[in-house]
């Protein structure tokens, strides 16, 4: 479902409204955390105040865990999220320059804005300085361009770069954060010579720590794929199914489902052209042309638990559509054997001859005889509305643009 704006759930006009609301929360929390104070911010480098590390690390693991859990539940598609591009030397050089800037200025751009608005004059100077820095970069862009856009590694994930799984990386990051919280508290107490009296009155972090550890383990055991993720089938598997004829549904079954829509959970899909479908089709059938079966709006429909039977005039087009859908991982999709031509020839127009020998053939023959009567004489009372047509959401997807 999410991210809402790139998935088209929210009017793009509201984009900027959301930006303002999210900014409100961002600014409020930063100020409340003490990030409007350069003395507090710089404390992380001298050991007298580790508020930066605590807030920063807690925020990172909270958001990370949230993203992973939301992705698993299906609320957030990680493939739609913006992953920072990695230009090796530019990222390192930028970080080094910002590190020096942090020590000298005592702020970073976000915190300087927060401090400036509540009247910290040093922060106002910092903001002016950062504007000069950006202008400087722009003015000498020619000189910087080769390093700025060189050594592009891609929009890569850190766990891929390290060659470990996302689950393990997330768990290790949470463990490192907890250890860092513990160790920095000891360092902070030593440097500030915190009295035992104050230390005693600290809140107990037993419950939050247990919760964080639980989440860490949860991230470790959760599958990386979303719960509802469709797993693609390999060509070998598809070939196997075709060879066994397991993808075919006999016309009798289709006929039976038309006579008794409640008894079978078949959903018929006509993959022919729009004109052909409008000319005639089977009652209750949904029309999805062959070349549109992979459109995002049909994703939920094909992934539903019902058995979906594709058909065309013969079964060539339906089989093509079936192959595409099977390759994409939809295992509840089948093909009506022989297509519409076979269906009409055998059910509607066949002359029934009582010459069958074995039990099964006799049974089939009798069924077809009855089916023919039903269809011809209208006893079946087939109404399209008896077969519920699934509602298919029309969602156009666009990829998100770049960030900060």
């Amino acid at each position, binding site marked *: 479902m999410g991210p*809402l*704006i*790139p998935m088209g759930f929210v009017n793009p006009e509201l*984009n*900027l409204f*959301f930006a303002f609301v*999210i900014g409100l*929360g*961002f600014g*409020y929390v930063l100020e409340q*955390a003490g990030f*409007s104070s*350069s003395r507090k911010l*710089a404390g992380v480098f*001298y050991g*007298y105040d580790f508020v930066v590390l*605590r807030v920063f690390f807690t*925020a*990172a693991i*909270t958001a*990370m865990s*949230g993203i992973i859990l*939301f992705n698993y539940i299906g609320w957030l598609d990680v493939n739609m999220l913006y992953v*920072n591009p990695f230009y*090796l030397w530019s*990222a390192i*050089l930028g*970080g080094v*320059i910002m590190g*020096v*800037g*942090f020590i000298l*200025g*005592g702020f*970073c*751009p*976000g*915190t300087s*804005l927060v401090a400036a*608005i*509540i*009247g910290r*004059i*040093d*922060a106002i100077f910092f903001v002016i*300085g*950062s*504007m000069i*820095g*950006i202008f400087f*970069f*722009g003015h000498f862009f020619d000189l*910087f361009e080769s*390093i700025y856009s060189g050594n592009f590694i891609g929009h890569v994930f850190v766990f891929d770069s390290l060659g470990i799984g996302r689950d393990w990386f997330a768990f290790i990051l949470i463990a490192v954060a907890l250890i860092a*919280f513990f160790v920095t508290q000891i360092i902070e107490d030593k440097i500030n010579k915190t009295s035992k009296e104050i230390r005693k009155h600290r809140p107990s972090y037993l419950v939050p720590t247990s919760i964080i550890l639980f989440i860490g383990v949860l991230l470790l055991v959760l599958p990386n794929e979303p719960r509802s993720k469709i797993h693609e089938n390999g060509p070998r598997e598809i070939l196997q199914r075709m060879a066994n004829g397991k993808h075919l549904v006999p016309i009798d079954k289709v006929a039976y489902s038309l006579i008794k829509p409640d008894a079978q959970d078949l959903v018929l899909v006509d993959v022919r052209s729009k004109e052909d479908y409008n000319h005639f089709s089977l009652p209750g059938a949904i029309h999805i042309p062959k070349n549109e079966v992979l459109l995002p709006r049909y994703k939920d429909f094909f992934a539903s638990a019902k058995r979906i039977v594709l058909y065309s005039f013969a079964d060539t087009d339906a089989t093509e559509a079936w192959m595409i859908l099977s390759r994409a991982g939809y295992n509840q999709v089948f093909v009506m054997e022989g297509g519409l031509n076979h269906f009409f020839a055998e059910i509607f127009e066949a002359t029934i001859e009582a010459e069958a020998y074995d039990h099964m053939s006799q049974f089939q023959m009798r069924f077809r005889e009855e089916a023919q009567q039903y269809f011809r004489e209208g006893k079946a009372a087939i109404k399209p509305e008896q077969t519920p047509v699934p509602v298919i959401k029309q969602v156009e997807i666009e990829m*998100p*643009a*770049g*960030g*900060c």
Partner: protein
Amino acid sequence: MKTNQKPYMNSYLAGFLLGLVLLSAFFVTGRGLGASGSVKSIVISSVASSAPEYAETNPFYAEAFSEGPGPMKNWLVYLTLGVLAGAFFSGAMSGRLGFKIEKGPRITTGWRLLFATFGGLLFGLGAQFGRGCTSGAALTGMAILSTAGFVTMMAIFGTGYMVAYFFRKLWIS
């Protein structure tokens, strides 16, 4: 201007709330938070309006204009307006509004402002190379588990710790 200041929020609670803000940013827009981007937009807009000929010949500004419907209409600018409003509200609620300069005990006001300006200059420059600052590149980049985010974060704080000793006079006694 002395007022009764309320204490700061518990750091872990603040971090948790900041994480939720970041998560909601991802949930709504598909991208995280950022601050330096809006400062960049302001610089680009002011340069473009005051010296359009200069902006036209410079590839840095040309690239910024090719990206969308004018940099001032940028998502990050509205985010920053929210940041300013939220921070002002918080400061007002907690009695922290008022003009003052924070500095270490061993440095004069003049030097503090000079270093703040120079620090800002470096941060503005570095944020261009890093394609984002501490919020846009490091925090957001870490939450989405991007390599760039972790590398930039480690470079910022690693360098900070390496040079902290030489600039200790700015902050500690």
